[in-house]
Each structure stands twice: as C-alpha cells, then as structure tokens.
C-alpha cells in the first residue's frame, strides 16, 4: 500500500514535468473568451501543443514507433496526462481520435489511404470525431438506422447522427451505418471513415441545457463514400464499435473544479442566526458524506492506476467511479443551491458566489449522468459483468432489424 511511483515512473515523471514546463502553450496572450475549450483560440493553441508533443516524442505515447508513437507504456501515458493536467492543459480535441478511433480502425484497415491520415492526426493537424449515436440509438447502441446503400464502387449514406462531441471542429469521423436491415440488429452494420466536409454532410451544434455547444447533430443527405473507406467487413460494423469502446478507459482524475472543500468554503460565508451554515448539524453530516464519496472516487482512480502500473487491465472499478462522479456532482451542486436558500436561484457572474459556477454545474451535471453510458447502463454493466447476473431479456433478439418496433 503506497502512492509512490516506482523508480522508473518517478524518473519518467520528472523528465516529462520539466519538458512540459519548458514547452507548454501560453494561453495568456489569448483574449479571455478564447481561453475556453471549444473556442478557435483554444483549439489553435492545443493544435500547436499537439505538434510540439509530436516533435518532442510525446504524442501517442503507447503507439509503436512505426505508427508515429513513442513505443511507451500505458503508465507512461497516464503519467504524461497527469502532468498535463497539473500544468492546467485541458485538451479535449485529440483524445477521441488518437486514443479510441484510430487505434480501433487500425485493427481492421492497414491500407495506404487510411495510413496517410495517421501522421496529420498525430501531429494535431486533423481532428477526428465519433459518429455512432442516433436519435433512436442511444443506450441501445446497435439500433443504428443511418443507411448505407451500395451503388457501384460507392456507398450512399442517408440518415442522422447525434451527440457527436466536437463534430463541428472535426476534420474526419468514424461512422457506423446500417447496410442490411434484414439481419438482426447487431448484424447488418458497417463502419466507414470519412472526411467531414463531404458533400451532403451537415453539422449542427446542439445547444444544451448546460449552455454550451460541444455536442452536435450530423445529417447525411446522399453522402457518397468510396468502398476503400469502409472499415472492416461489410455487415461487421459491430466489431468496430466494440473495438472502439474497448479503448474507452475510465476517466481518471476528471474534475468538475468544485469539491467538498469548496462546499465548506461556501458554507462558512453563508450566515445564519447561529453563525454560518458550517455550524449546521445536518450540513456537517452532508460534508462527511460528500468527503467519503468524492475521496473514494479519487482513491478508486489510484486503484485503477495500480492495475495499469502492474501491467494488468483495470477492473470494474471504472463503472463505480463514473457513477460516484455523475451522481455525486449533481447532489453536491443541488446542496450548494439549498445552502444559499432563495439566493441560490441567482445565476449571475457578479451576484452569484464563484461567478455562478455552482448554478452552471447544477445544470451541466444532468449531462454527466447520461453521457458516456447512462447511470442505468453503468449499473447494468456492474450487475452483468461484475456480479454475473443475467442480461436483460431482449425482445429484439434474432429479429430482422426492419421488424423491430421503433416508437418515436
């Protein structure tokens, strides 16, 4: 039981910490509103950072050298990410492409045309996005309706994708389509990679209740794709989905920027007849509960790191950590509003404590419980994969896809 790096890990950490400090992007030159993620200013700064990392040999640390990586270990990759976070570098643009999509595509395609796309992605010149979810295919991730129909050497794509993170900024995407609706749901899917400026493709940002527009809808109206951009075999797209999701790792050290100690800070500023909210017994019990859950989430991250450091695959802790994170965040934000009483309603950068951060995250936290696998899906994962309980009874099993009721 210790939290120490191994000697090799410590040496590596020291090396990358120095390198990051010497090379990290300087956002201070940007106007304040351009320092925020998903703005052009921030994106360009991160593009430059990705190029710097490539020159320094820190892009795609776990990839083999012949693919443009550093041939390093997963724990080195984790250490580099930790040091980036410590240096306040927040980069959401390249993770999807470099950690999930491109490694997955590589398992199926190793042709010159796709391989040409890899160096620009590594360098940060090209951003990739995931085009999987649809209006009728959320948790039911195989319920894809976007159609791909073969015409000569081309495929014609029609349909709609949704919840596509960063699609408005992306240059390329990995798309899952339905190619044979007469087969059962998980069969009859086919994957393609494509350029996001293809004629007939339209990206529309989604304005979420949290106020941001990171997510998008993507529409396909007779978009034509050559067969050499197909990923894997025709009707074997589900294997591509699984390969992608296998690369989805438990987010370690993710933070909403507010925690139990911030709750204590806020409570000690809110006066009551007896002193401050900090003197309220029920509030003190709440702080204890929040501390236990949020610290446990942090510690579960250390358990995942331990597995990685030992060269093992992380266990089922990831799903538990995600649920603690999503539910815990929403609870904490709601309790913060209660503590402010009627004043908690105000969401104003000047009138609200922390410039309205509690209110902003109160709204945003609903999305945490839905994105990346809903609370309910995470609980199914725990029940089925950890506890070994039976899968849900599926009325669509073995039924040709076109005969499955769709509702709205």
């Amino acid at each position, binding site marked *: 039981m210790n939290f120490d790096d191994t000697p090799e890990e410590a040496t590596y950490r020291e090396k990358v910490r120095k390198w990051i400090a010497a090379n990290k992007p300087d956002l201070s030159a940007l106007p304040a509103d351009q320092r925020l993620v998903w703005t052009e200013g921030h994106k360009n700064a991160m593009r430059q950072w990705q190029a710097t990392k490539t020159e320094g040999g820190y892009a795609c640390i776990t990839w083999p050298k012949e693919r443009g990586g550093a041939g390093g270990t997963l724990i080195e990759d984790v250490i580099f990410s930790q040091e980036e976070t410590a240096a306040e570098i927040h980069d959401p643009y390249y993770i999807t492409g470099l950690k999930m999509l491109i490694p997955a595509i590589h398992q199926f395609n190793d042709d010159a045309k796709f391989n040409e796309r890899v160096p620009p992605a590594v360098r940060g010149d090209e951003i990739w996005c995931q085009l999987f979810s649809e209006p009728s295919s959320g948790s039911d991730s195989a319920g894809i309706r976007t159609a791909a129909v073969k015409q000569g050497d081309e495929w014609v794509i029609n349909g709609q994708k949704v919840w596509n993170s960063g699609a408005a900024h992306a240059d390329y995407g990995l798309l899952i389509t339905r190619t044979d609706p007469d087969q059962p749901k998980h069969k009859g899917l086919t994957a393609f990679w494509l350029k996001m400026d293809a004629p007939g493709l339209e990206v529309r940002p989604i304005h979420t209740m949290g106020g941001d527009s990171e997510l998008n809808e993507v529409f396909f109206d007779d978009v034509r794709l050559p067969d050499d951009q197909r990923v894997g075999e025709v009707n074997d797209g589900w294997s591509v989905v699984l390969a992608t999701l296998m690369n989805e790792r438990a987010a370690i050290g993710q933070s909403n920027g507010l925690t139990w*100690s911030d709750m204590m800070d806020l409570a000690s500023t809110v006066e009551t007849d007896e002193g401050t909210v900090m003197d309220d017994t029920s509030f003190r019990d709440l702080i204890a509960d929040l501390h*236990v859950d949020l610290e446990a989430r942090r510690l579960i991250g250390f358990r995942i790191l331990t597995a990685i450091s030992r060269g093992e695959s992380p266990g089922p802790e990831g799903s538990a950590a995600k649920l603690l994170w999503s539910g815990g965040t929403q609870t904490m934000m709601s309790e913060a509003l209660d503590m402010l009483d009627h004043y908690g309603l105000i969401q104003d950068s000047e009138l609200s404590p922390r410039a309205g951060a509690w209110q902003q995250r109160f709204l945003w936290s609903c999305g945490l419980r839905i994105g990346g696998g809903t609370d309910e899906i995470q609980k199914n994962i725990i029940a089925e994969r950890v*506890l070994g309980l*039976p899968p*849900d009874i599926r009325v669509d099993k073995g039924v040709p896809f076109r005969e499955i009721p769709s509702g709205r």
Partner: protein
Amino acid sequence: MDFDYTDEQKALKDEARRFLADASPISVVRGVLDDPARGHDEALWGRIAEQGWCGAAIPEAYGGHEFGYVELCGLAEELGRSLAPVPFASSIYQFAEAILAEGSEEQKQELLPDVASGETIGTIAVSEGPGTVSAKRMAVEYANGTLTGAKLPVTDGMAAGKAVVLAKGSDGPVLVVTDLSGPGVTREAVSTLDPTRGAAKILFDNAPAQVLGAGGDGIAALAHVHNRSAVLMSFEQLGGSDHALEMARDYALERYAFGRQIGSYQAIKHKLADVFIRIEVARASSYYGAWALSTNAPELPVAAAAARVAGCNAYWQAAKENIQTHGGIGFTWEADPHLHYRRARHLGLAIGSAKTWKRKLTDLLEEQRATEQAERQAA
C-alpha cells in the same frame, strides 16, 4: 503507485480464507447464535491463536510476529467475511492497540505477550448508557488506584481477562487497565442484537486498576486508539459486505419468479449494483486507512473516520439488501442473511455509530482547513 495488497499479502489472505472456510463454517457461527451464553467459540479462538494471527501487528519485542498492519487488515477482511464468532476485534484491534499506543513500556512487556499468543483476551470498556460517551456524563470513577461504577455494554466482556477502561479521574477522563478476574469486578452477560459476539455489563466496586501509560486526556487517548480500531474494523465490514453481496447474487441467480431468474430483473440488478458501489467506496476508503495505519501517516484520523463511515454504510446496505433479495426466506431464523444483518449492526455500533464518526470527520476537516488557511496567511 501500488494501492493494493502485494502478492505476498494476497497469498496470506487467501490462506486465511481457506483456513476460515474450514475452521469457521456457518455451523460454527450458528453454534454460538443458538447458545448465546457461550459468547464466542473457544475452539475456533484456539485455532486462530495457533495461526499466530493475534500477534500479527504486535512487535516481536512484546511476543508478537510483526507481520505488519496491512497483513492484519487482510486477516480482518477474512474474519469479517466468515462471520467468525471470536473476540479478535476486542482483543487485537482495541485492547492490544490501546496498550501499544498508550501503555508504558512496562505495561507493554507485561500485557502484550499473552494477548499476542491468544492466551489472554482483552477488551475496552467505554459505554455506560444511551448516547455517545462524554467527559461530562461519565459516571465510572477512578480514584486511589481503584475503579467504581458500571460499564455496559462491554463487547467480549465475559470472555476477557483484561480491560482498558475509560473512567473519570481526578484530572478528568483517563484510560486505565484492569484485571477483570480480580477483586471488585462482577459481570453479567447482556443479550445484544448479535449473539455471535458476546457482551457484558461489568460492575466495578473499588476494583484495582492502573493508569495506562502516563495518563493524560483519556478522551483524546481513546480517540487515538479508536482511529486504529476503526481502520481494522472497516476491513471486517468490507469482508462481511462482500460476502453478503455474494449471497444476494447467488440467490438472485437460483431463484425464479414469473418464469425467469430474479437476478434478470433490473430492480434486483440495479439494487445490487448500488450495493457494489457502496462496497467499492468502502474498499477504497479502507485501503487508504490501511496505508495511513501502516505508515503512521498524519492523515490517519481523517482516513480512519472516512473508512469507518464508508464501512458502516456498505455493510448496512449489503446486509439489508441481502435479506430483501432473499424475500420471505431471508426473514427466517434458518436462513443465514440475518447473521450479516446482526453483525453489520454490531460492527456499526461497537466503537461509535456512523453518525458519531461523521461528526468527527467534519470536525477534523474543519480543523485541517483552518490550519491550511493559517499557513497560507503566514506565508
């Protein structure tokens, strides 16, 4: 980063699990449940003592084996899982820890070897009546080298030969140690929610006792000992929680209703997933406590309180939902789920309730915050 048991510690734990599967099957637990006057299983206690477990964290200089605290945590986890009806917690996590942490060199030399061998069972006598113990409301008195007053309940108070007692001294609360088989001590068994862990009411009438170590603030000394006990007990809670969840899972797989396994319904799946999450919180918190305990880290008080709160919560959730998953059969005396329900409460109250520890945790966090603020201002 190595936030887990080592391979050697895992091997010791596996060996302990195999040993307890043989030495403490559920029939042994039920043997005490159905004959509560026994208080514990003496034969099992003897076999555990033979394994050297009692001395797992006691230094060799005092007759122990000094395997280490993380090793002791691993044993605690297995003891909790097996529901072993033995006074291990009272004697090792509490009495021995009190002597080690607060006793004088002479007291350690005198008392610890017999505890390490299992020959002597020790316990701690704190509670006197309803509510948390406080300096203000304490009645048991220590004066002129003797104790007077009543303590109840005292877990393992019938089986124990020695006890550390919290009493009101001339300068405020103080921890003293006494011989329970000596003069001025009478005891009677008290029935509790968990008959597999005996308890007593102990009457002291001018019973000879000596101050533990140099004396001083007994409440603070007790808090220090309790921090150490809390971590160790959280591992018993963790083991018990894991086992209760496994029982629920197994039953959900074998029980059919409406033509399918009840474990295929999301009402059951999600309920048990929620229990799993509580257990993962307890596991992470307990491991952190084990780290703090084994390294004597300044984080121990906060880590112990968090492990205590998480452990109480996990075992409670796992035990009650195990009965619920079993349905009617789970409510019977013959079925085993109530053994965990009882033990969860025993462990959840024995060194103070989760509620008490939550208060303590927030007090500590507030102190920590004030210190940090003062340091920032000074800088």
